[in-house]
């Protein structure tokens, strides 16, 4: 197949744009990585700006991992993320599956209730009151249960389930399978893409847990990663009061950012193939 000049020009243009976009994305990450492994004096000498580190040190990471609240916060975040995502997926799946069956009585009413919560919410203080009265304040569950189900994800999952061919269910029933067997042995294996995609949404959500932590939790040992990282970053704003605070250097701040974002950064590529598939879910089939 011979390509015309026009085609090649077009391709070149597309590549140029893509490379440019890729650079835009890579550049800040590279900057953060480089500063985090360069001694601060070196950073300052270069005008606070380093892309390719010449003098590498891991002392910032060492300081953070031994002398701050970060390791504890890391544990909390991992726990929230693992338990939280599991809770999310189970509950979302169990809610979406029945709703996807057209013979469910009252299906419209339930769907309406779900859509309603998409548009209206109770607001901060009523939500706080509920969390408080069920006794979740100051517990790790306060960061897991209030957002156990995102209605939007229920809808995505529902439309995926609806796209599964009806014949599958019929044949399963003929073979004698009951609802739970159909759900776990037929629907679940077929739904890996949507589970992965929605799992990733939830996972990132939990990893970035911030607001529920600062509202519902006052016990420092339960603070998740992002709260502590924010604290480290905010410390550079010294006030008159805390003259004895040692402000963290930029190197330390960037290292904290790296520790907080690295795990998600690593997970992404592995889920990406499902992710692209999952993003299209419901767009045509729904």
């Amino acid at each position: 197949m011979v390509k015309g000049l026009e085609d090649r020009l077009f391709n070149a243009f597309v590549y140029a744009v893509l490379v440019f976009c890729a650079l835009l994305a890579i550049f800040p990450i590279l900057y953060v990585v480089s500063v985090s492994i360069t001694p601060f004096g070196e950073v300052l000498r270069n005008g606070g700006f380093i892309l390719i580190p010449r003098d590498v040190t891991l002392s910032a990471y060492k300081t953070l991992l031994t002398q701050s609240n970060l390791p504890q916060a890391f544990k909390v975040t991992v726990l929230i993320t693992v338990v939280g995502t599991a809770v999310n997926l189970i509950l979302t799946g169990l809610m979406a599956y029945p709703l996807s069956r057209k013979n469910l009585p009252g299906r419209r009413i339930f769907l309406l209730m779900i859509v309603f919560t998409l548009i209206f919410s109770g607001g901060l203080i009523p939500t706080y009151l509920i969390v408080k009265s069920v006794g979740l304040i100051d517990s790790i569950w306060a960061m897991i249960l209030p957002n156990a189900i995102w209605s939007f994800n229920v809808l995505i999952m529902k439309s995926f389930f609806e796209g599964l061919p009806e014949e599958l269910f019929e044949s399963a029933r003929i073979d004698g399978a009951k609802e739970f067997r159909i759900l776990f042995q037929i629907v679940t294996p077929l739904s890996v893409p949507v589970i992965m995609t929605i799992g990733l949404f939830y996972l990132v959500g939990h990893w970035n847990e911030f607001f529920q932590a600062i509202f519902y939790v006052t016990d420092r040992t339960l603070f998740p990663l992002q709260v502590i990282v924010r604290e480290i970053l905010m410390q550079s704003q010294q006030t008159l009061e805390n003259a004895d605070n040692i402000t963290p250097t930029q190197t330390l701040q960037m290292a904290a950012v790296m520790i907080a974002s690295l795990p998600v950064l690593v997970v992404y590529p592995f889920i990406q193939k499902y992710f692209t598939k999952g993003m299209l879910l419901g767009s045509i089939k729904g």
Partner: protein
Amino acid sequence: MSSNSIKRTSVLLMSVTLLGAVVSGCGNGGGSEASSSPSGSSSASSPAGTDAATPQASADSGKKIKLEVIETGNNLPAPDQDVIKKELDKALNVDFNLTVYASGDDYKNQLNVRMASGNFPDLFALDRQQLIEFSKQGLLLDLTPYMDRLKQATDFIGEENVKKGAVDGKIFAISKSSQIPYNTYFIRKDWLDNLKLEVPKTIEDLKAVAVAFTNDDPDQNGKKDTFGLTGAELNGAFAPVFGAFGVGTPGTVYEKDGKLVNALYDPAMKDALAFIKDMIATGAVDPELLANTALQHQEKAFKGQAGIIWIDWPNMTKENMIEQIKAVNPKAEWIQIEPPAGPAGKFDGSWEIGNTPGRYAIPKALEKDPEKLQRVFDLLNYVSDPKTGSLLVQFGVEGTHFTKDGDKIVMTDKAGEVGYSWLYQFTGRPELSYLQTKFVPQAEFIKFAGDQPRIQTLNGFVDLPEGYVASDADRYIKEELAKFAYGQRDLGEYDKFLKTLETTMKYKLFMDAAEAQLTALGYGSK
């Protein structure tokens, strides 16, 4: 089949309604509990009075009580590594739970939510505006009848600071003791030497030196990569220049020749702005001056870009700062200088005397739990006791973090472990002696900064009138002054600016309130 499904639907609906009823029932229960505390506030004084009259038998009931305190701050270690918490637990027989929030906005949200939902902390920091609001809503405990039980604390902070916690004559908060100013101009001594220049004595000198620092290659690297002056925005970098004209920071109110003056209406303000405009026009001022947030100006100074900076001594002279400065350039030498003189003498910017570094209030609901209330009082008194608790929250544990040499306190090399102790200074600290003990190598800088003359502003005494939105007005002032300073708006239009400020931004309301309230306090009556 269809009748079956209808039945199922109705059963489901019923169960949902039932669930709703249960949930709302719970909600009501919680709600009434929460609302009962403000409603009880109408009879505020009588129970408080009887309470104060009962002897303090409750103080040592032997029960360990959980105390919850929230405030802004950072760097607090986990409770099991927090030696100060442990000492306080032991001394007061409490289980102390301090929570700090790094960002002021987060903290405000948290406090508002908790106040609204009736889940009160036992002691919490708040600003003046919140103090007024919450006290009007009846959420705060009126401390006036308890003053004798807070004697240690009130003695520690002093009469004038006690008054700062008052709303309509009633004390609703304990204020921290006063601080001393930290900021001065710092200048690169080695740059002055390189260019054979003297330390600037007047604002004209300051301008000349800044220009020389910009144009004459003070770092002798053959490149024009430096500028003269930097600081935190206009008000920071030029604070002593405003001072030299006898003008306070824009927006402040102060006494001048026995009369109350607002900086924006001070006749010398225009002269100050004209001088600043000229100085900026020479190109000797940080071109990103207005964008300097947090400590960006300090970074520029460290990097060797700027030669003069108006900043606090901790960020310039603490060991780790020196280390950073020397890492960039071993020859760099920064010295503190006196404010340059101008037509009105010399003032190193403004210093607010009406405000307090912080204040703490106790929720009204706590008066129902006299035992716990007593522990909160115990806490406030304890951290104010110069022989015991105050030492703990200032310097840490005796023998570990500091030792006593007669009356003199010497920090040990473990002192760094309790660098967060300021979070526990609920009633403040004796500022000068505290700093000079903690920062022995910096003692001179501390004293120097504290000794500089400043224009004493009174804004902290003024409660903002209703209908006046301070943040809008402040932003307008900042934007327009920047335009004047950068020559984008002609100074001839200054009066027009004031006119808009008074009408559109309702600054007149603030002016009248300030006048009335400060006159009532006895200011400006000479």
